[in-house]
């Protein structure tokens, strides 16, 4: 019999609580560990995806190339939460937000050290990797 393959559960490390463990875009986690936030671009038709995905819905190809999310995006909108779902209570209060990069948008959190009075819709922000307790990782938005 062939050797037993270990399950690739790298995605378990994503965010305060991850609800996904096995995905074909697990390399996203390696990129975070290397300090890069990445999306995918279809190698056949060129369509850009964030969040990254394994399959292209435009040409049905699965020939995806990674690209780095870099430079400033524009803050589309945000909200500061006073209540959280199970497992996120220790993070409160925190802001979730959307950044617009033109070709794609990024959904995530605003860095906890950005004071709310300095946040305004339309401001330039960048997406950076954030290390969480217990070797977990996500990404956050900081002032660009």
């Amino acid at each position, binding site marked *: 019999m062939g050797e037993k393959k270990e399950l690739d559960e790298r995605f378990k490390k994503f965010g305060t609580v991850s609800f996904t463990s096995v995905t074909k875009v697990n390399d996203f986690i390696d990129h975070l560990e290397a300090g890069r936030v990445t999306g995918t671009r279809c190698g056949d038709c060129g369509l850009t995806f964030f*969040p990254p995905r394994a399959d292209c819905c435009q040409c049905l190809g699965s020939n995806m190339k990674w690209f780095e999310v870099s430079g400033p995006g524009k803050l589309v*909108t945000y*909200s500061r*939460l006073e209540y959280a*779902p*199970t497992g*996120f209570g220790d993070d409160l209060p925190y802001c*979730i937000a959307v950044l617009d990069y033109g070709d*794609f948008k990024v*959904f995530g959190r605003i860095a906890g050290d950005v004071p709310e009075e300095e946040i305004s819709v339309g401001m330039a922000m960048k997406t950076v990797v954030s290390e969480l307790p217990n070797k977990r990782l996500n990404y956050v938005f900081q002032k660009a």
Partner: protein
Amino acid sequence: MGKIAIIGVGQSAFVRRYPGSVRELAFEGFKEAVQDARITAREIGASVVCSAPEYDKQRSPAGVFAEYMGLNPQPAFYVETLCSSGSTGLRLAYSLIQSGLHDVVAVIGFQKMSEISSAEIQERMGRGADIQWESPFGTMMPAYYAMYARRHIEKYGTTLEDLALIRVKAGTYGQLNEKAAYRKKITLEMFSDAENRMAAPVASPLRTGDCCANADGSSCVIVAGEEKAGAFCKKPIWILGLGAATDTLNLAGRDLFSGLTAARQAAGQAYKMAGVGPKDIDVAEVHDCFTIAEMMAYEDLGFAKPGEGKDLIRGRETYKEGCIPVNPDGGLLSKGHPIGATGGSQIRSVVLQLRREAGESQVREPEIGLIHNIGGVGVYGNVTILGR
């Protein structure tokens, strides 16, 4: 295509905690609708059950309900589009009748949110989004709608007071609805009193008063083809237009944050099918899970231009004496929001309005009514137009 009518409507009272099992809860809406239609279970050709399964302990509730309501051996099945499951059920019933497969179909919506513990509800809430890419950030439904509210405020100068005015209107009519879970009068002052619960921040800029609450409830809509409708029913209410559309689940895929694209598309389809426009609507029930959702509905449905929804509520034009009465049953903000039962309850309210049986909340002589029912944060948009 033949004409298709709603011949019976029913709903349970919407309550914080229903003192019975799920099948007993669903029976309440079903019983009222069947009695309203003056038919028996034997005359129902198929049943469509609508709910959000993450709150159900019972697997495959359609089978249990068919047994409990005396609907065996007719076929029964289940649909889900989050909070708009009931409207999706109506769309399915319409197609089943239009296809000729069945001539009478029962759409049974229910949710017993208290079926699971508060801790379990909190856990489910975290998964009400893209679980791979959004939920790990700690997302909640109010925060998503809050992001739309923020954008609407920034873009159009809508104010928190405008949103509070929507809740005040909901309270006005909630007081009249004996099936609503929240029947207290709400005043604008409550929102400016920092000590008041209504003013407590939930997810900025939304406050407690901007949010609807969980509830247990059931609803039922009986749908029939023209021939059966004429035979059973003195006041059939006709389905004139149906619209349904979807949008990306992950907000990163959206272009519009000051309105719901899926609602606009669904409205366009429904108006076209019915051959009417926004000005022809005499009464509407819209999906006010949050005050901002009603504000966007005014604009997405064409009752106001984008950005001018605030003028409708400031001028009290969406009160029952206004040019376009919206949510004279108190809306989700007053009734509570038992997910799978909500669409059926909205449909029921418009049917009662069109039959002129809406009691104290009756709008003056409506001919055409509209239901706007949204699943998730605009993931599923559904618009239904009914006429006498």
